[in-house]
């Protein structure tokens, strides 16, 4: 009687895949496949991997600015020649390269988004924006008889009530798309948040930001981030973000204030605090085990990065952008450490998650509205 190495359910005859969790039954049946001496071994049940967790967890960015420059210029050239139409394909190219160059251990992320899907999504996004613009004009034409003051209030209200929630909808779609098109070690990410939640958060923002003279914006940003990262899955792992909006607010306010008062010197401490705030409050969990992120950079290192990038951009009149971008990506990878007790060979994708990913694949919304997204995930 054979049992699934992964979930323990009884296997049906000679089935290749477990009916319950779809784990490959042959994996455990043939340990040490083909005598490979690849450091990442097989997920042979609870047997520990030959590779240490530290080796598994090592973050690195292996891209180089030369290749990135070629990709960037090629994209620009094709975008100009097609009067902008190539733009989504260009973005897909960039993302693919960045993801494929970002490694955890010996394996990189993969981006599966296709230019065509992103193009359709971009069209939808543009169409809705254009529609809102036309609606504003129509509103102006109709309300014109009521005078300027009333019309401008009307337009402002329309913008807030219509656009912010719609943006929430787009961010939702963008996240779903990006997560479903992101994989690591063959396992897809997934965003399981509800549409109405992001729409509601954005609507609240639309209403409270003017009332609080802009202060609520910081709550909005943190609430969005919090919701998104608390509803993101990676196979049977899930992410969690515990950063408090009030902490975020103080960090930003104090940071901005002190940066001005010190004529910019504090700015690098401020950037460091922002970096730490995000990563220290983010973790990945699986069945009670956790992977945490430990940021390491010092303000001085931030100074090197930022000042260096500015010099590069100024002296190359912007052409050196790929160098600055690669520097930043490498900096991020070099200054983050993953710490935890999850064997990265033991993540599984359930049937339900797999189907969800396919469902997402049918949702043709692109991630052009990814204001709240960071490139690491």
């Amino acid at each position, binding site marked *: 009687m054979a049992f699934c190495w992964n979930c323990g359910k009884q296997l049906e005859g000679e089935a290749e895949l477990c009916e319950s969790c779809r784990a490959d039954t042959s994996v455990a049946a043939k340990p040490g496949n083909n005598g*490979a001496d690849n450091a990442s071994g097989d997920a042979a049940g609870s047997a520990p991997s030959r590779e240490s967790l530290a080796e598994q967890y090592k973050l690195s960015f292996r891209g180089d600015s030369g290749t990135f420059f070629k990709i960037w*210029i090629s994209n620009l050239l094709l975008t100009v020649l097609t009067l902008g139409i190539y733009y989504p394909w260009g973005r897909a190219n960039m993302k693919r390269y960045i993801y494929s160059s970002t490694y955890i251990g010996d394996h990189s992320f993969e981006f599966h988004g296709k230019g065509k899907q992103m193009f359709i999504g971009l069209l939808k996004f543009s169409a809705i924006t254009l529609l809102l613009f036309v609606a504003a004009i129509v509103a102006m034409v109709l309300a014109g008889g009521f005078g300027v003051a009333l019309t401008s209030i009307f337009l402002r209200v329309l913008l807030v009530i219509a656009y912010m929630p719609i943006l929430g909808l787009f961010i939702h779609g963008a996240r779903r798309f990006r997560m479903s098109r992101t994989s690591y070690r*063959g396992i*897809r990410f997934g965003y399981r948040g509800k549409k109405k939640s992001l729409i509601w958060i954005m609507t609240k923002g639309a209403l409270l930001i003017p009332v609080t003279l802009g202060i609520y914006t910081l709550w909005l940003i943190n609430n969005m981030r919090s919701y998104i990262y608390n509803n993101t899955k990676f196979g049977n792992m899930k992410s969690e973000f515990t950063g408090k909006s009030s902490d975020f607010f103080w960090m930003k306010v104090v940071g901005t204030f002190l940066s001005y008062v010190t004529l910019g010197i504090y700015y690098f401490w401020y950037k460091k605090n922002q970096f730490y705030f995000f990563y220290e409050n983010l973790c990945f969990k699986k069945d009670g085990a956790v992977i945490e992120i430990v940021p390491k950079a010092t303000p001085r290192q931030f100074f090197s990065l930022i000042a260096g990038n*500015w010099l590069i951009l100024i002296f190359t009149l912007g052409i050196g952008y790929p160098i600055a971008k690669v520097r930043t990506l490498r900096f991020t990878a070099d200054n983050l450490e993953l710490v935890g007790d999850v064997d990265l060979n033991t993540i599984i994708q359930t049937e339900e998650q797999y189907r969800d990913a396919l469902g997402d694949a049918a949702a043709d919304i692109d991630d052009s509205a990814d204001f709240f997204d960071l490139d690491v995930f």
Partner: protein
Amino acid sequence: MVLKTQAFYFDGLTSAPHNVELTLDTSLKDLSFTNSGGNTVSSNISDIKYETCNDRMEISFKGMEMPVFVENREFIDEAKSLFGSKAGIYQELINLKLETFLLITPIVILLIIAVYVIATPFVAKAAVTLIPVTVDVRLGKLFLDKFAGETRVDSAKTALLNEFASHISWGNNIELNFHVVQSGMVNALALPSGDIIVFTGLLNKLDDYETLAALLGHEITHINNRHSMQSLCKGLIGYALITVLTTDFSGLATLIIDNVNRLNNLSYSQTMERDADDGGLILLEKNGIHPAGMLKLMNVLQSAGKGDEIPDIISTHPGVEKRIRHIKPKVPEKTYGPRPELERLFEDLQDNR
């Protein structure tokens, strides 16, 4: 020749890699491996899709959802030469040497500039034709409302000016309304709604009816050619184009480019002003009024010290000197018949001072 190498793939169900041995038969042009289920997966290399990134090759077999990864340098080089280059202009570009890009880059920059300079006004003009004139009118009325509340309209002179204008054929497609406003400002402006405002500061400095007609002709040309709407569209399209091309730029580059866009918008305004001068000349000519009126208008502006303080490059109007130089050769030598009704109305406008 038969090449073998270590490779691995993920099955999409668990995160553990499956290590396999990949076999490439260069004579049979066949690539194969045995998966962890014991089945042999093989394919002719013509059905293979591949991508290389950071010393790693990703091979997609037809019908297999997950790719196979190879990290063996020699195998990758051999396989690449056998597989041939992938179709697609993007791949061709990426495979070029980095040095070649030092040549491509300036070409790309020039192309971007060319598209921006040529395509934007062209697309803006096309976009304007899609927008109904009613929108122009509404936009203009919005401003007029604001204006009316803040200025002193001289109703007597307004009536006179409207009568003056009614004797001239302007080729307009929307209703024109003229307003005289009491103000020291030496200026006049045209709203897209067909409302033209002339300040007494300028009105009192005009010498004769030809100059007044030239002024009105200039302003009405703005309206006839829908310059306001063109400006709006051009600004939006220019901005959209810039956003698309530079989204991946840093804040600094975007800032620079944004300001270039702003400067460019100003120069477009200068083009429109020149168009209005030209249009005004044509309207005068068509109505049998001496186009020299336009020159006289320029002289009035010059003596009022208008338009010379601001350097051309950041002004919405070309400098008066420049305008005079442009208009002078277009003023014909011939004489034009008198227009007593216009002369009378003009006198009335001045008399009520």
